């Protein structure tokens, strides 16, 4: 039996997959770094230029957007997950909320930008309805293509993503732990502070990192909201790829991309570590 698929063929079988990944993922990734580290004479190192020069503010903008939308998404998404647990006896509610969360967490790109333009744009339906009850968001200076506008749109996928991360973690809290704590005289708040929260912390932190990575890589939504002109790092990279713009700074686009890979890699690695820790408590 085993001889029919010998040692050599066994390794050959993995060749197509390995070659494919190398050509279409690993090599392009390495190419970005090679170009980013390629310093021509009389130029500053592109990797340094990318985070100190005029693009520094792009990174700050992108990171602020990611962290703030993730922090708000974490709070609201967790609140939804806890509400699902509290209302566990309401038939169908959990299925609807978790089901819709899995749909909304996947949403993004151009259609989502359209939905928010129709709702919270200058002539948006929600904008109008809010004005009816004397909440004039346009008067406050709210603009859907500005920082807080993009945060609002990102929440549409950040909140459900956090809910999806936290619901299984809350399921993993065993009833016996609460009962044990109670029989030993712990109050509800003591149970949460000293037992539930420490157990949930890796899942929550991991979820947060996942949300940040998710928002950091997003591009299409902000692009469509601002008709192409946004300070986001990916939008800046686009100019380099299409224009070969400023002479003497040809490798700056690659350096911006390389920094994106570095930041995303750190976030994903952190997520993996946290997930592994969170799983310790499941059987």
């Amino acid at each position, binding site marked *: 039996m085993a001889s029919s698929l010998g040692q050599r063929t066994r390794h050959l079988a993995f060749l197509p*997959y390995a070659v494919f990944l190398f050509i279409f993922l690993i*090599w392009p990734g390495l190419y970005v770094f090679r170009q980013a580290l390629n310093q021509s004479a009389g130029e500053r190192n592109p990797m340094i230029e990318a985070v100190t020069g005029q693009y520094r503010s792009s990174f700050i903008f992108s990171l602020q957007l990611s962290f703030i939308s993730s922090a708000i998404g974490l709070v609201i998404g967790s609140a939804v997950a806890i509400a699902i647990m509290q209302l566990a006896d309401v038939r169908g509610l959990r299925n609807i909320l978790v089901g819709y969360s899995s749909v909304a967490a996947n949403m993004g790109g151009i259609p989502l930008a359209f939905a928010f333009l129709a709702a919270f744009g200058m002539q948006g339906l929600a904008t109008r309805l809010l004005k009816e009850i004397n909440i004039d968001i346009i008067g406050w200076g709210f603009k859907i293509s500005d920082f807080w506008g993009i945060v609002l749109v990102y929440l549409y996928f950040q909140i459900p993503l956090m809910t999806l991360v936290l619901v299984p973690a809350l399921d993993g809290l065993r009833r016996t732990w609460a009962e044990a704590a109670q029989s030993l005289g712990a109050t509800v708040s003591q149970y949460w502070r000293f037992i539930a929260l420490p157990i949930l912390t890796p899942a929550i932190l991991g979820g947060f990192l996942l949300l940040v990575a998710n928002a950091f890589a997003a591009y299409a939504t902000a692009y469509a909201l601002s008709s192409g002109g946004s300070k986001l790092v990916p939008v800046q990279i686009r100019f380099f790829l299409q224009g070969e713009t400023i002479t003497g700074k040809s490798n700056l686009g690659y350096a911006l991309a390389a920094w994106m890979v570095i930041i995303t890699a750190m976030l994903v690695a952190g997520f993996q570590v946290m997930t592994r820790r969170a799983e310790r408590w499941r059987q």
Partner: protein
Amino acid sequence: MRLGRFIAWLVVGVVALFYVVPMIAMTRFAFQRIPVIKLSLGNVFDKWTVAPLFESFTESEFRSSATLSLMLAVATALLTLVLLVPTMAIAHLRSPRMRRLIELSATLPFVVPAIALVVGFAGTFRETLPILIRSSFGLVPLYVVTALPFTHRTIENGLAALDLRTLVNASRSLGASWTRTMIFVIAPNIRASIATASFLAFTVVLGEFTIASLLLKNTLPLYLAYAQGRNPQGAFAVGIVLIIVSTIFVALSNRLGKVVRA
């Protein structure tokens, strides 16, 4: 406890409103021919029409981008399956080490954001193999990579639920070749995973904007961005259709995912 339930309902209500309102607003904008300013309680149900959608359907730009997106979706799903199913089946049978290595490699696309991937891809192949950049089907390998973390997971679940060794031994001892075993024994047994992986690949292709936009390929999301300025109602109508189609794909893969795990 009463208060806790009240707060829970409040959270659910507000978030549900946040989820639903943008969808309603988008639908209304696309299908009702009344500007928001003139909207009042008296005319909420007036002047609804599906004409904008059908106007888009007749545009040649829409047709060519819809055809392209559909072809890319099918090609991406096929390449994904051809690449993953045999490799992963053999890894399951023969080499747990390979299985872990493949699992690790399948999370790599998370690390390289689409924008970095396409910049590296364009730089690599602009000189060496320009056909990959000129042809629209050059997108297919990049989409396979983008969908990999999700497609790998579903096929992994499907294979893990099988008694693969017994199946393959039975098939091989009855004289079937490896290819026959793969097509007639393994594939039918993980058909739910194969369908799920295909739906996930379709969802990725129908929603992907970054890569197609940087390589200037007119897929459906690019058509949306382009039609937004020229014919906003029609563009929004097509956007709704895209949301509905991907929602169906996600729902189907959720349902089938449960079948696999059960």
